[in-house]
């Protein structure tokens, strides 16, 4: 428990016992981020590529007048890329700098409420060789979900 408390300080503000996650798909696997960090879920608007930007950057788009940088979450996490389908969505999240960044995912599934007991923190996972972007593993009934750390993902 002490461990979990320490981690909540590092990035997961939690309510008593349970927390809501948005579950989505990247290259066929389930991933999730804390729901409170998501501002909006969009169908991808036209995106203008930005020459010379980092490979993970797809480009910029306008969301009701707000200029948003869109990153490919698959490329950011180095998972296999498949062509985007019409199920693809952009998650708008606010970076710590205050900038609103869009993350392209293959598909958005649902919101899952996970109890503390269903979460296994990264530090207690075997091997310890886990990406800095992973907070832990969620195990809602019958599923395995990789819980992502938005703070490291959207900090450039």
């Amino acid at each position, binding site marked *: 428990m002490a461990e979990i408390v320490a981690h909540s300080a590092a990035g997961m503000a939690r309510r008593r016992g349970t927390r809501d996650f948005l579950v989505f798909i990247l290259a066929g696997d389930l991933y999730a981020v804390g729901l409170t960090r998501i501002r909006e879920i969009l169908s991808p*608007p*036209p*995106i*203008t*590529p*930005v*020459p*010379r*930007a*980092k490979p993970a*950057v797809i480009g*910029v*788009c*306008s969301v*009701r*007048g*707000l*200029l*948003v*940088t869109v*990153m490919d979450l698959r490329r950011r996490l180095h998972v296999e890329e498949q062509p985007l389908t019409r199920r693809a969505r952009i998650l708008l999240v606010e*970076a710590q*700098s205050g*900038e*609103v*960044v869009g993350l392209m995912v293959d598909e958005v599934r649902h919101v899952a409420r996970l109890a503390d007991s269903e979460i296994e923190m990264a530090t207690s996972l075997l091997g310890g060789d886990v990406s800095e972007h992973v907070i832990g593993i969620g195990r809602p009934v019958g599923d395995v979900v990789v819980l992502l750390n938005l703070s490291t993902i*959207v900090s*450039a």
Partner: protein
Amino acid sequence: MTDPTDKAREEFFSEAQEIIETLSKNLLALDASLREEFSDPGLVNEAFRAVHTLKGLAGLFGAASMGMLSHRLEDVLDALRLGRIELTPSILDVLFQAVEVYGKVLAAEKDPDEDAAPLVEAMLAEFDRIGAGATRDQSPTAEYDLDPGLLAVLTEYEEHRLRTNIENKMRLYRLRVQFDLATIDKALEEMKERAKRHGEIITYLPTGETASVDSIELDLLLASQDDLAMLIGALGADNVVIEEINRRNATVMPGTIKPAPMLRSRATSLPGKDEELQPLRMGDDTGLEASGSLKSLTQTVRVDIHKLDHLMNIVGELAIVRGALASISERLREEGERQLGAELQRLHRSFDRRLSEMQDGILEVRMVPLGQVFDRLARVVRQISRELSKEIRLVITGADTEIDKLIVEELSDPLMHMIRNAIDHGIESIQQRQEVGKPAAGTIALNAFQKGNHVMIEIEDDGRGIDEQALIERAIKSRKIASSDAKELSREEVLNLIFLPGLSTREEAGDLSGRGVGMDIVKTNISKLGGVIDVHSEAGIGTKMTITLPITLAIVSALLIRVGGQVFAVPLSSVSEALAFDASGVHVVDGREVMTLRGATLPLCRLDRLLRVQDPAAAGMRRFVVVASMGTRRLGLIVDHLYGQQDIVIKPLGRSLADVRGFAGATDLGDQHVGLVLDVGALIEEVLTGSELSRERKMYADG
């Protein structure tokens, strides 16, 4: 932001900021009145009131260090008001310093990473120092029969040294020395060397009384433990008169300052007193009783500029709705619904009109008077002129000219730089000015006015002007131009050499006797705002720099182009022309493609290659050259297509794209698409800098 306490804090910050600005204006007015030899107690009262209000505010918001600072500053001002401390330039320095510290404290309140505590500590110690003088009723320097004019111009450090020496029971001497103008540099150094063996030279100043045109008289203030006879033996000469400065028992009259003859002669030589910098009196002279109220006196609302940006974005979206309305009404009429179509058409027109009114309204709200930045400059002028011992008269006109808030913020550094240059390099020393028959006080005029959709700012000095010959020599020496080309430069081109990067560094600036210190940076910063600088200079008469800026950054005119299948916007302010590209006219010089445009060589850049956005479909098609210019540098950008001109709203790219060079931002092109805006300055820099050197080196080898 929506949290009420956050909102209240925001209010607190802007209110405090405003009061601090008022305080600063007050101090400037005090400074002016000090020089004018009349002391206006109302000004001290106003300053006191401002600080008192700040103290109250700080208390309300639990801003402890600001409260402490205000509390102690209030004491100092109270002492000044009651005449317990005498108002001197060095006291004013401390007060100005307090304004700076307030700024830091506010920043620290906003950003927990900032720590203003040491500054506040230092400031409080400074107050103690002044206050200590007050409790003894007079400073130790007052016990000496020192020329108050001299005291008035001591720098803080000098004053500190004077105090320390007095406290160490040193005796004070005045050495009045005649120097030959031709050899003063050397002679003064020798004099200082010799005097150093006997004590410390605290300061030296010209007396303003000269026996002949080619000599100058200086007063040296020397602290020494030797007695008079010994000093006369050691330093005495035909041209040196040594007097001991006696202690006196009389108390100093507080509250008034009697300038020394030297100072007065300078003051009276100021011409045209009416146009003197006088804008700084604040409000009316309401009594001190009114001071306790924290109620805001003005009927204004302070707004975060990003909220205005947001409103502007909404206007942009409404414009898209407007477009949709127009097409629906069109369709209705085509489908025979004439009446409905006409009604919608009317609605559309009225919507259109209101929308552009709204856009104008929002733009207007973003406007602030240039006076904001000018006031800050007045403070800088005061500081620099004291550092350099020059008398400067700052004349400001058009401080009420309005310009976009964001531009004002970005203007203050370049303007400060230019003013510093004008004082440092433009205005001659007092002696030099007198020799050529100019008034001792140099004049710097800061004029602002609106001209169509632009705001012009002129910075004019009556100094020595730019030495064009020296400029050319310097440019040749630092290999910016070939000596063979130098003769062919027009005057304008010669003057524009000051904007070349690296033309002169700080060390070199002295012998250049002109400008050039970081002017390339000034130019770049102004260019970033979509502005340009022009220089005019007459040897011996002065220099005038004119900055032309767009009124707002919110909307700029841009040329839309296509390259590599993608649409980009190029701000028109940096486009000089566009023409059809003729591949047969391209030559390769030193591995760089160039073409000849009206007799001049124009370096070319294939934008698709530079940005790596090649479009195979465009191969073999007719292309265009957009001639982009930034200062004196030009670059022909080869593009696939020209779409024409459009007014665009530039939005900065997000922080996650901060490392991407070459784009000034992005803009909505309508139809949901976003276009990137090229940063022409950065592109020119990138393309030309690397190769320019090698090319010029070759020119040298050839010539």
